[in-house]
């Protein structure tokens, strides 16, 4: 893997300022995403508070082992991501590539488990408007729970897919071209911020979806 001499863009005094600006830009984006998922969770809390028994009844069909495996996968992927950033900071290119590969792999595994869970959900007749049979006592709010489930997990999966794409872009393009070095690795740090934020979203979706029906 070749190494390049990287110069800051015209508007920056040095690479440190360029890197800090990139990080702050990602934090602005994360702020907007916090409000985006926050509003979604608000609707969940609102209807769960209004219809607690129907929500609990509907949520019993949520596949706990899939959610649990996925929270393990995504938390581990956050670890591999920071280890990749550490490797970049230390100039260990081989380790950087390996940790990034592990991160992407864990992300793909998460999506595969999610896909399998959707398959199980279809078999359980809990897909609103497509294949839904209300259980006794859960109508009409039980269906709302599953609408939230598919909207929230679907949006999360889209975010994670973008994250996998970004990791592969950094790995297959920026690292290979020698653009991620111990001197300048801000692009990787920015992707790491995004990745850990997507992880954070799942931390809140997990109790909302998988634990409500069992409490």
């Amino acid at each position, binding site marked *: 893997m070749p190494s390049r001499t990287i110069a800051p863009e015209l508007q920056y005094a040095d*690479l*440190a300022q*360029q*890197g*800090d600006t990139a*990080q*702050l830009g990602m*934090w*602005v984006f*994360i*702020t*907007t995403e*916090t*409000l985006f998922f*926050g*509003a979604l969770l*608000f609707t969940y809390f*609102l*209807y*769960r508070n*209004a*219809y607690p028994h129907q929500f609990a009844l509907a949520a019993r069909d949520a596949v*706990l082992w899939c959610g*649990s495996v996925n*929270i*393990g996968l995504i*938390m*581990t992927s*956050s*670890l591999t*991501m*920071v*280890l990749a*950033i*550490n490797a970049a*900071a*230390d*100039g260990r290119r081989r380790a950087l590539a390996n940790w990034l590969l592990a991160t992407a792999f864990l992300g793909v595994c998460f999506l595969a488990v999610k896909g399998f869970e959707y398959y199980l959900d279809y078999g359980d007749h809990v897909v609103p408007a497509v294949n839904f049979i209300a259980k006794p006592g859960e109508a009409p709010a039980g269906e709302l729970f599953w609408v939230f489930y598919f909207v929230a997990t679907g949006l999360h999966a889209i975010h994670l897919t973008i994250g996998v794409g970004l990791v592969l872009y950094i790995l297959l393009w920026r690292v290979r071209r020698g653009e991620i070095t*111990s*001197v*300048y*690795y*801000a692009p990787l*740090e920015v992707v*790491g*911020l995004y990745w*850990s*934020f997507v*992880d*954070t979203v799942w*931390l*809140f979706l*997990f*109790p*909302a979806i*998988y*634990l*409500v029906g*069992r*409490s």
Partner: protein
Amino acid sequence: MKRAAGRDPALLFVVAWLVLVLLTGISIWTAFLGLGVFAPAVQFGIAATQAAILFILFMRLKGPPSLKWVFAGSGFFWLLFLYGLSFTDYATRQGWPHR
């Protein structure tokens, strides 16, 4: 932007990851304890603790540039507005929830 020396050691992240896994285990365990109305508070409290670990350590809120706190804090600040005003609205509505 050489910050290798300023980054936290890998061992700290591994320990933090173990804490995250442990907290997840506790969260799942609480679902079967029959905590009733307190269960959501406990489970989302654990999720908030895990998120704080991710934000402060994994997303390096504690490192430079310190201006990050303003950006991250603004998201939290507006989220408080969103929840506070919206819940106040629904809590004082006539005929909500619809039965």
